[in-house]
């Protein structure tokens, strides 16, 4: 069983977001970057499949040089190969990123392609299904449970307050949801072993793609703004529960008009 796991590197979810001078991007100064949290579930699932049936887990990331750190982290957890596609992914739209990843995936033997259900930060939830379409594969999105065997998979897909059980032949694209598994931490042994693995690098051109089909096309980033700062509203002393309940009811009825 060979898997490819596509990784995006994102600002730590605890970080405050500042806008860069151009008014269109995030100011990366002092920002801590992490492997996108949903990608961790994707990676863990691929590693578990490999541990059951051998094969490779190749992690891929498209982005600037800093993404090598994310790939290194994935190798330390148990991925066996890594590919860094160099490029300013912030200038590419989701379909541009998907085209780059799909082209790269074609060069790697695989039965399954994993993504997180969304890149935490850009929050698009687009690239996984786009890659599935470009490769002509079935997809199961927002997966909370996965079984693989006999050339097919059975996956639980989370939908609004319910779950679908979907069967699909391999190869296929899976996007991972929290709950799929409990991701491991990197062990010291893993970290040492990862240092010996060379990260392969490629450019967009190496993959046979034109910059004009990847960067600054289809979607134009106009501006990035912080939401209006809230100052907080009325405070009420809730020492008397009945009075507090009355105060809330009045608010819900008269202002929210939800009763």
């Amino acid at each position, binding site marked *: 069983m060979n898997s490819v796991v596509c990784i995006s590197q994102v600002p730590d979810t605890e970080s405050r977001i500042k806008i860069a001078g151009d008014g269109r991007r995030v100011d990366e100064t002092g920002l801590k970057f992490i492997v996108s949290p949903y990608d961790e579930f994707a990676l863990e699932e691929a590693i578990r499949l490999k541990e059951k049936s051998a094969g490779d887990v190749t992690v891929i990331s498209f982005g600037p040089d800093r993404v090598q750190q994310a790939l290194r982290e994935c190798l330390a957890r148990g991925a066996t190969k890594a590919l860094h596609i160099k490029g300013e992914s912030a200038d590419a739209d*989701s379909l541009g990123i998907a085209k780059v990843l799909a082209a790269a995936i074609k060069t790697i033997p695989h039965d399954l392609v994993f993504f997180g259900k969304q890149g935490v930060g850009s929050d698009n939830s687009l690239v996984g299904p786009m890659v599935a379409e470009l490769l002509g594969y079935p997809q199961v999105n927002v997966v909370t449970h996965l079984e693989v065997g006999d050339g097919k998979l059975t996956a639980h897909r989370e939908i609004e307050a319910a779950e679908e059980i979907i069967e699909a032949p391999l190869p296929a694209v899976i996007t991972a949801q*929290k709950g799929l598994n409990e991701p491991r931490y990197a062990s010291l042994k893993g970290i040492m072993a990862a240092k010996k693995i060379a990260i392969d690098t490629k450019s967009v051109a190496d993959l046979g793609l034109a910059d004009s089909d990847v960067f600054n096309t289809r979607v134009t980033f106009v501006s990035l703004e912080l939401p209006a700062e809230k100052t907080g509203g009325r405070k009420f002393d809730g020492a008397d529960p009945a009075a507090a309940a009355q105060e809330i009811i009045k608010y819900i009825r008269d202002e929210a008009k939800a009763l």
Partner: protein
Amino acid sequence: MPGVLVFCEVQDGKLKKTSREALTIGNKLAQAAGGDLVAFATDASVAADAGRYGAKKLYVAKLDAYGTETFTAAVKQVADDVKPAVLLLGGTSNGRDLAPRLAARLDVGVASDVDRLEWKDGKVRARRPMYGGKAFATIDISGTPAIATTRPNAFPAEETGGGAAEVVEVNASSESKAKLIDTKAPEAGELSIAEADIIVSGGRGLKEAQNFSFVRDLAHAIGGAVGASRATVDAGWIDHQHQVGQTGRVVSPNLYIAAGVSGAIQHLAGMSSSKHIVAINKDPEAPIFRVADLGIVGDLFTILPALTEEVKKAKAH
């Protein structure tokens, strides 16, 4: 003519709320461009409903349950026929599953989870949250059609007084590699936070898993969904699909009641665009009070039951 096509979903014989919202903003875009609003659905019985929200035509493909591959083929077929300038999908599980697949097949740009849409210099300009709501991006989508998924509750549905949409049958048949084997139905009374008008959320202040009953009781009484902070999900008190925030769902209901939620930065980002926010917390310095319109400093274990009783009384009238 630069028209708009809206992918509609049907539930219990009616258009889903998110579909009505997508039709509403779709109608505004179509009118501004002097084009028609048309809709896609798999059930002709919603023709009157679609017309009420401005659709002139309803393209109906008789397909069974949702499947990515069959629905992509059917909507693509209608898009090829109608050649809309804009294709909108409500931001449901299925809408978010289908939009990227369609965009890749049509080789066009797409914007996810948008809360504003307008024309700007002949392009569709969209605003969407990023970083779990910590920032908002404005983007222009070029290409025909420009695709967007609409954020639930961002575009209040408005009836236009239009007559029933003209039904156009679509002969769509395609193979699907993926097959739906089973659906585990939702538990009775469980609403999804993604689309709910009202959310009652619990945080670490609940102290233990079983105390989520305080939150559930109020949610059921008021007709809302149960939300949760990341800490409570990580502690295993409640399932992840209830999680609000950057690694859960970004939500914007009409009413958000937070009980025992201190307000970590990633939780605040995920709910502060709610229209009305009530917070109950015993710590007067809790960050949640910064975004609350009404902040109650007090004990949730006595206030929530009192509130639940008051809501029941009010509902009984």
